[in-house]
């Protein structure tokens, strides 16, 4: 187990290194300077480049970046003068993480419920209804949903706050819903098909043949077996959440990491783009690692290594 995790972490580090390298060089090709003032003259830009070390050969800059990275230093933002990227991310990440986790939990819980409901009423009206609703959930990009939610519940009905974060829980409701619908829909569909498959399996037949009653069969045997595969879904779902949150955070003025990422791209704030990418990649991979380990815990068939 420890060895397995070690191995995975090693792979993770290598992957991260490749990610860092490729993003770094990609960034070099992007046009323009990282300075925000359009009025800078060429000589002033030269000056600034010298001060920030951007006049050094790319390979040296890359090396410096790696060395700093090893010390946990992601550099200093260009856009946010003097702010260290680690700090910027450190302060925004918890907000995005809370939003993401809330959305994931809400989404997965509803997904599990609806999915199981759907499977048990396979080919009945409820199943059809949930099927269409969940498909609708998948086909609606979260930012469109966010706009509509904001409009209806924020502007028209005045039920919920329309912006901000951290003052009251009610502020988190709309963005969480906007982000949770996707995972909920995916989970619903996934659970449904898993559960249907499980319900047709031999061991469910055997469990039925025991005469313990359909309720018990479902609770004790069908649920667990159809829930385990959901774990594998969490990794990709996290990825989707990351994408979704960038826009949703913007719409609801939530000072999260995604919003910052979107604003750092046009301003070409390398350190922030790099830092965010690294953090995103890391989160994704750690999420996948965690779900793999978790799977090994809940599924006796899976042995790590």
């Amino acid at each position, binding site marked *: 187990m420890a060895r397995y995790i070690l191995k995975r972490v090693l792979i993770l580090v290598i992957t991260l290194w490749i990610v860092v390298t490729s993003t770094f060089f990609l960034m070099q090709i992007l046009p*323009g300077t990282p300075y925000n003032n359009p009025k800078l003259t060429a000589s002033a830009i030269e000056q600034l480049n010298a001060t920030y070390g951007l006049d050094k050969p790319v390979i040296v800059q890359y090396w410096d970046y790696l060395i700093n990275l090893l010390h946990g230093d992601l550099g200093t933002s260009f856009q946010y003068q003097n702010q260290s990227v680690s700090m910027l991310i450190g302060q925004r990440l918890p907000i995005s993480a809370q939003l993401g986790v809330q959305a994931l939990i809400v989404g997965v819980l509803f997904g599990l419920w609806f999915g199981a409901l759907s499977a048990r009423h396979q080919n009945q009206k409820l199943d059809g209804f949930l099927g269409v609703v969940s498909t609708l959930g998948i086909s609606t990009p979260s930012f469109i949903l966010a706009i509509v939610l904001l409009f209806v519940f924020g502007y028209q009905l005045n039920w919920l706050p*329309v912006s901000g974060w951290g003052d009251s829980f009610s502020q988190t409701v709309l963005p969480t819903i906007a982000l949770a619908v996707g995972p909920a829909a995916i989970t619903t569909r996934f659970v449904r098909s898993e559960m249907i498959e499980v319900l047709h399996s031999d061991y469910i037949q055997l469990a039925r043949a025991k005469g313990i009653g359909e309720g018990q069969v479902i609770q004790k045997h069908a649920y667990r077996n159809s829930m385990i595969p959901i774990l594998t879904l969490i990794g990709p779902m996290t990825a989707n959440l990351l994408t979704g949150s960038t826009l949703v955070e913007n719409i609801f003025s939530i000072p999260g990491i995604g919003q910052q990422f979107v604003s750092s791209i046009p301003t070409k704030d390398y350190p922030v783009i790099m830092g965010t990418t690294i953090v995103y990649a890391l989160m994704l991979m750690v999420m996948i690692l965690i779900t793999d380990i978790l799977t090994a815990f809940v599924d006796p068939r899976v042995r790590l290594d």
Partner: protein
Amino acid sequence: AGWWGSNPSSDKNTLNYAMSADVQTLDTSKATDQYSNLVLGNTESNLLRVNSKGEPAPDLAKSYKVSDDGLTYTVELRSGLKWSDGSKLTAKDVVYSWQRMVNPKTASQYSYLASGVLNADDIMAGKKDVSELGVSASGNTITFKLDHAMPQFKYLLAFANFAPQKESVVNKEGDKYGTTADKQIYSGAYKFEGWNGTNGKFKMVKNDNYWDAKNVKTKTVNWQVVKNPDTALKLYKQGKIDRVSISNSPEMYSANKNNKDVKSAAVAAATYLEYNQANNAFLKNQKIRQALNLATNRTELASQATGGTRDAAVSLVSKGLTKTTSGEDLAAYVKPGYTYDKKKAQQLFKEGLAEVNQGKMKISLETDADSVISKNTVDYIKQAWESTFGSDIEVTEKVVPFKQRLKDSQSGDFDVVVTNWNGDYQDGSTFYDLFASKDAGYNDGKFTNESYFAAVKKADTTDATNASARQDDFKDAEKALMDDANINPLYSWKASSLVRSNVKGVVESPVGLTLDLTYAHRK
């Protein structure tokens, strides 16, 4: 109520505002964005402060004198000035701040503004030591020595980036200077609080050490970052903030322009098209440029593409920037008479095309993608030109990120580009100097117009200290610019906002600190 808590718009001691982007830094020398400057301008004081008439008036300074040749400024500080932490604010702090600005180690993106102060350019280039800067202090007096007369220099004395900084604080905080509200000290009417570097909620609290604290009536100004303009509007209508911009989208403007709270203010910004006269054969042709200008219906453009959030341009210089000696708006005074004339445009275009003799004119029209309005603008111009000149012209839109547009402009990699220019100070030269010569930094189209160049040069040198002669020089420049159709002015910016009527004493400027809350208070 309920969900929303009590209505904050009635509390006499507090004001509530929203900004539409994050504060990026409190480092006085390094702040470049509008919102950092908004915070710094209200929490740091400089020698002068622009008053409600648009004039720089003494703030930390008790008085100032300009020598007759315009090369020496002598400023006397008030006595007993204090920083927000209670320590003394001295002339040294002023000198230090100027030195820090031009010090190449600081890497300030605004250092170029100091160019013109004695030795500034050499210091910035690393050729001289900062101590040789033409800014010196003796007792309470600070002397500024200039290379050449700078009519705009008094505005720099009111500029937030040149506000005094305390060396010991800068050194103590080091890398972290200005990264949070408590890693900065304040000399202005308010202290900044509650900003941790990234959050979107913070406030300004009255600074009791401010020299004029007795006249500062507001105890607290609450701020929040609201990026979605519709949300901000909503918050205004709920009474949660005291001011909201409605110029973000044409629709928002139209829907609210009849509101009794509407207040409009000039902005020292103009949008114009630059024609690439270095590389593009068609655009080198004067007739074609004239035709394009004549085919531009600026009034329609301002109403259709900007929905009235901007005013149709009458000149390069923006409306409301500054006034002439007779109190007239400079833009109105210099306007050379841009018109829309479809017939004449078509005729000139035909002639021009024949002169160029390269067949159909295919050009790209570049803009950056920062707002609906800029997209609408290029859509409009494309359609206008194509419908005027028919199949003789094909316009391709090129919507790129801001940085890309900037790069393309600077490297001459464009045909026609939409340029937005924000002035730096309330003087015509902030616009006319753009194209001071063929190689001037912002003459992206690389045009040569000797009468324009001459007029501008005259204004900056011979007439530098003669206001009325200068405004005539500017008028000549505008005329030259229109005759040769070197650029195509589109519209002049303005800021329309809903403003809570019980808030008084706010000073709005078209440039620099756009919203000065020093004496703002709720009635």
